[in-house]
């Protein structure tokens, strides 16, 4: 029998190792409709983008901004500009080299009003971006920036894949993206699964041998798939499944994304422009009753979770008070015919939009429908897919009510949701008082003053009731113990996924 040569042995060992390393399979309630960081609106998109794209800076394990695509940088003495040298040897997934032009292009595309990027606010502090060399650039700021690296984590896009900075939401890039990240797209299937493979050209070591996103709308089924080892991670476990997963020693639960709350948003372009009608709706909805079947969670009175430094604990919950609600509706010219509230021959009816992949949301909608029906208000739920949601809610604002949830990173910046000029304010809420408080909170450098201002904003928003604030749920991710070195970023989840591995 011939002796095995050393190269052969090492080669065999390497093959064995690569055969053992498995990709990470994780579940999302719905597949992302678009993978383009210019138009990110939900966490499903944000999470998969974290695997595909890089930013100039990223979070270290201790959540400090640390260079990612940046090799070195210098902030001007007046802190109104900075120069950046990009890391050498970084390539896009199609093999082209990363250049300073890509960074300049990304910033300009985000700022281009024709693009209408949902992320535009993240670069509003940058006035100009210019390439000063193949891998060097200069940014100038609207004002002094003490720590601009904290704001430069947005994802960088390849200029050569676009024809200009005015980019359409339906650009082909959305289903065929390339980034510089540790994983690259292998397939984006019609069944909602996305397969990412390890980027062997990545500038840093990548231990994880790829990732697969599976669309699984049924949360209970997600949990079963994890228990039976058909998945390695669930990004969000609903409270009712926590006990099962907690008891499974093959699964670890990671506290995650606690800055998240549910709400019923009201479109201020219609009947909800009237504060009395908003109050009436709030008083007709029994939030505690809605929450009970979902499981453990805390009701909230405003746009922060209870553990937030900005939560105003002096704001009282609006009492469930259908009698007062009826009185308010009657003062608006509606009459009750014994079954419905009617005005000008038309029953009081609202369309409530919810995304069709929100299994828990669908249960809540049915419960809300039942509650309002009790008081003579007809609710017409519409379960729509993500593309329709983006179109009808974010763009054309074609809704009466929406049921959704906002998730915030550790800054809990509600400016974009509640400022009259906010990019995420699709309900159309506008209040001079709230605007002033939010503007001051953005500019103050005193932490206690900022807390005070945002606690006042909580009070102001709660008084205006632009939405029915519902609850925050205990949020956990679940990861199989077969996944080694799993550390979950508290917002983006996969920030350090290249260091994970699956046994």
């Amino acid at each position, binding site marked *: 029998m011939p002796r095995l040569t050393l190269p052969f042995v090492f080669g065999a060992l390497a093959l064995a190792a690569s055969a053992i390393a498995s990709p990470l399979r994780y579940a999302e309630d719905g597949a992302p409709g678009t993978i383009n960081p210019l138009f990110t609106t939900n966490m499903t998109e944000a999470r998969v983008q974290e695997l595909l794209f890089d930013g100039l800076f990223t979070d270290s394990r201790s*959540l400090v901004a640390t260079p990612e695509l940046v090799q070195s940088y210098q902030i001007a003495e007046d802190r109104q500009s900075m120069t950046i040298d990009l890391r050498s040897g970084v390539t896009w997934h199609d093999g082209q080299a990363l250049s300073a032009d890509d960074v300049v292009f990304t910033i300009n595309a985000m700022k281009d009003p024709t693009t209408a990027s949902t992320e535009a*606010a993240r670069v509003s502090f940058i006035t100009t971006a210019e390439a000063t060399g193949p891998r060097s650039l200069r940014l100038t700021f609207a004002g002094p920036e003490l720590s601009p690296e904290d704001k430069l984590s947005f994802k960088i896009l390849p200029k050569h894949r676009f024809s200009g900075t005015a980019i359409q939401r339906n650009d082909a890039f959305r289903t065929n993206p390339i980034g510089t990240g540790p994983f690259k797209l292998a397939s984006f299937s019609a069944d909602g699964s996305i397969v990412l493979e390890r980027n062997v050209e990545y500038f840093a070591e990548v231990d994880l041998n790829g990732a697969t996103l599976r669309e699984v709308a049924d949360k209970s089924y997600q949990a079963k798939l994890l228990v039976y080892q058909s998945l390695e991670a669930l990004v969000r476990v609903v409270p009712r499944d926590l006990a099962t997963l907690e008891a499974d020693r093959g699964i670890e639960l990671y506290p995650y994304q606690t800055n998240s709350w549910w709400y019923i948003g009201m479109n201020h372009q219609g009947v909800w422009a009237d504060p009395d009608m908003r109050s009436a709706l709030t008083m007709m909805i029994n939030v505690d009753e809605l929450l009970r079947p979902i499981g453990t969670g805390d009701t909230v009175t405003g746009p922060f979770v209870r553990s937030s430094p*900005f939560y105003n604990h002096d704001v009282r919950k609006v009492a469930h008070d259908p009698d007062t609600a009826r009185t308010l509706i009657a003062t608006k010219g509606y009459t009750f015919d014994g079954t419905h509230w009617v005005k000008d021959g038309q029953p009081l009816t609202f369309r409530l939009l919810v995304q069709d992949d929100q299994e828990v949301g669908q249960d809540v909608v049915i419960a809300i429908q039942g509650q309002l029906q009790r008081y003579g208000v007809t609710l017409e739920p519409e379960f729509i897919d993500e593309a329709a949601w983006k179109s009808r809610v974010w763009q054309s604002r074609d809704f009466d009510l929406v049921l959704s949830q*906002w*998730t915030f990173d550790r800054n809990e910046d509600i*400016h974009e949701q509640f400022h009259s000029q906010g990019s995420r304010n699709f309900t159309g809420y506008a209040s001079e008082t709230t605007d002033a408080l939010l503007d001051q909170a953005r500019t103050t450098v005193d932490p206690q003053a900022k*807390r005070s201002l945002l606690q006042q904003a909580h009070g102001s928003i709660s008084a205006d009731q632009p939405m029915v604030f519902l609850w925050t749920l205990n949020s956990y991710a679940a990861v199989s113990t077969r996944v080694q070195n799993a550390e979950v970023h508290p917002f983006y989840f996969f920030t350090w996924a290249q260091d994970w591995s699956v046994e």
Partner: protein
Amino acid sequence: MRRQLPALALVFFSGCSETPSTPDMPLDTSSWLAEAIITPSAFEALTAANRDGWVALHASDLNTAVGAFASDSTGQFRARLARQTVYADLAAITDLAIWRTLKVWQSRGLPTDDGILGVVPLWRRCGGPQRLPSALTDSATIPFDGTAVPEWANDRIDAYGADVEALRALVAVPVMQNETRIIRDPCGYAFLLASDDPAALIDTVSQAEGLASRFLSAMPTADDLVHQSAATALPGIMGATSPSLPAFEATDLPSLHASVVALDAVIESERLRIVQQAPLDGVSLLSELSLAERLRQEVLVARSRTLMDDHPALAGALADIAWDATDRAIGPRNTAGAASARARALLQQGRTREALDALEPLLTAMPESAAAREWVADLSVLEGLDRAGDSKEE
């Protein structure tokens, strides 16, 4: 539903009039789990005298437990040890939050006022700067040091020598508050800690006999208690290296997980052994009171604290594994010590906002934790002043 000791304990006793018929193997009551469940008389003796105290200790309602146990009972010393452990965490959290706050404040050149300038001299009264773990601080220089103790602190300084219960009530109250500034007590937990000598408490408990010295603790056997009391004067890490449990060594996440797997195997084996030998009501009690889970949490949290200063990420991972996701409130499934350890590990990792979240459940169970919570809340906001916030729909 919250598990409560008294009612179930009564059920247990009513069903325990008969000892189990000939067991398959000789009863081994060396662990407190086995002793409490397999030997009804031991558990009956334990709870008969101080039922309210044990109910409170089981629910991790530590202030109630301290008040409920007879002053010279082992349970009283156990409750005080548990409370001291939480105070030690809160003191560490406060120290680190103050140091980071002052450091960021100074580096940003933020305006100073009487409140900010008065923090350090007051903090020095309890040796705060000296307690900072060197592994977590990159400078021995304390910002804004060198000023005199402000007048507004005099009343609080007087209170530091007062009765423990009075100080406990005062800790949550700001030391100073005006239109622009609120200063929380930087020393309250340190003085609460100093009010009870942990070494003496450990000594007393370790010399006590019977179940009371170990029930609901991280030390399953009497030998473990003796070993641990000789090994440390720090109540928070007692039980981390009990001889009856698998050896604990964690240098990275895989080795940490391996240690958890080994611990789980031993506890599960013990649980199965007990189930085989205990009367039916005992088995029910074991399950309803989550006693095996409690042992696991106590051990993991004690182990987490041993890693706290040098390996905060590992300490945090262990504290997360110990935390029961099914019930966020402090109670039988999640102790006050588990919450404070998690918060401390998160803060030491730089995860300030998450540490704030981890402290939240403690506020209800121990209102005196408010001062630590507010220091962390201010720090969380201060550290985020330059960041661009991100938000998305889920």
